[in-house]
């Protein structure tokens, strides 16, 4: 019982604060403290959800965005972590490339969308590739940091127990680096999500970003904000998946 209270209470407080904030904004818009042409009332945003799903294929759009984010995230993980391992094992490679990867992490890649359009065409592939390019750098950096930060004495314990190199990796190096790797994955996911919706918005294809662009061009402000809420929903879903993945890994290591 206590357990449930511990888990549900923070969620309840979070939702209540959100509702409170919405109520405050509602009042401010209605009393014209905030310009109603810029900011629709939260109630009208809420009211547009049905329309978005019914008339604008909102759920299909959400699905398209989610699929792109999923594809990019999987790519980021299966490429980022091994590349990081390579950089960790090959000191020269690390010296040669680490600062370039850091530079990549800071680059506003979205702006290079015309180049990617030429390379990959006006398709979801472009979106996925760009999201991958934007999100892979933090995963590489934090994973390298995670492996480099494994305390030498833990490796010594493994060596003294005569672990094979593969046991040493799976049973000591990887679990020790997991917290840092997941920090990288979270950052990578944020970058990927931003890039997916941003590029959809810019090149007018795919899911929610495209929808937001269309609605904004029609000056459908409540619809626009409702679509943005859908983006938040996608991000919440992905963070929940990531978190349960991390918990599952932690449990299986115990």
């Amino acid at each position, binding site marked *: 019982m206590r357990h449930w209270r511990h888990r549900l209470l923070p969620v309840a407080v979070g939702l209540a604060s959100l509702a409170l904030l919405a109520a405050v904004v509602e009042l401010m818009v209605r009393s014209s403290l905030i310009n109603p042409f810029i900011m629709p009332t939260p109630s009208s945003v809420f009211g547009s959800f049905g329309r978005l799903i019914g008339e604008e294929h909102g759920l299909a759009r959400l699905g398209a965005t989610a699929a792109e984010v999923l594809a990019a995230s999987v790519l980021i993980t299966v490429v980022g972590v091994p590349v990081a391992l390579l950089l960790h094992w090959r000191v020269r490679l690390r010296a040669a490339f680490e600062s370039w990867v850091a530079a990549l992490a800071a680059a506003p890649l979205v702006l290079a969308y015309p180049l990617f359009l030429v390379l990959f065409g006006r398709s979801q592939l472009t979106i996925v590739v760009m999201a991958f390019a934007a999100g892979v750098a933090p995963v590489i950096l934090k994973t390298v940091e995670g492996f480099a930060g494994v305390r030498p004495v833990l490796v010594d314990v493994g060596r003294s127990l*005569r672990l094979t190199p593969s046991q040493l990796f799976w049973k*000591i190096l990887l679990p020790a680096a997991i917290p840092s790797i997941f920090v990288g994955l979270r950052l990578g996911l944020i970058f990927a999500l931003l890039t997916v919706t941003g590029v959809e918005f810019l090149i007018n294809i795919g899911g929610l970003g495209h929808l937001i662009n269309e609605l904004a061009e029609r000056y459908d402000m409540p619809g626009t904000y409702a679509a943005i809420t859908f983006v938040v929903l996608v991000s919440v879903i992905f963070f929940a998946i990531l978190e349960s993945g991390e918990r599952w890994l932690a449990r299986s290591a*115990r």
Partner: protein
Amino acid sequence: MTVRGPAMLKIEAVSKRYGYGASAVTAVDNVSFDVAAGEFMSIIGPSGCGKSTLFHVIGGLTGADEGRVSVEDEPVTAPHPAIGMVFQEESTFPWRSVAANVAFPLEVQGVAKRERLERARRFIALVGLKGFENHMPGELSGGMRQRVSIARTLVSEPKILLMDEPFGALDEQTRLLLGEKVLEIQQELKQTTLLITHSITEAVQLSDRVMVMTFRPGRVKRFVEIDLPRPRTAEVMTSDRFGHYVAQIWGDLREEASRGMAAQEERVRTHPGV
């Protein structure tokens, strides 16, 4: 004089340096000794005299620059299956529960889950952590974590036990009690034990023989046979002879420790701010 059996562990003229040229430090210099089968030997010496370096060399984790280490005449060039090590630094796996930490060596050996957890439980109880099996190391105190790593090394019942200041993080009472426990197992399994410590009483309480090391370069200063009856009861530990051994080792150590402190002061004076 106790009669020692054949040598189980042999250290012959081992030297180890760190760094190159002018900044090179000779951590261990021409150290030789044997540990007989079933013997409990302690190494004592001032901080920074090369004890941990020697520990890593004997454990096969670091190569010596000169000399050799052998187990039953078999040279040690990599970690040896007969040797179990307890490290000076905190070494529990923070992502594993206490039980899974202690069962780790058995898991690696492929012992079935049921059996390894059962055996782990026995050693967890032995180091006084019964009831903490499912706790994570992060929920324990530093001393409790150190006991987890001791149990983890004991669980595979190594023929040779190497311990680098394993009781360093413990209070005096726990240290004495745990020392007794380790001794019990050691006697029961007839383990050959090499204990590195900075506690003189601990060395005298537990050992058949104590090796005193000099400060930089780390050399053998003296061997002291501890000719006291076992078990080392409270009576033995308060006897005059016990006190005599403590005083003798302190006499040797005092000289080295003050040289060590002088070296440190010298460094502070010549490199202020380092």
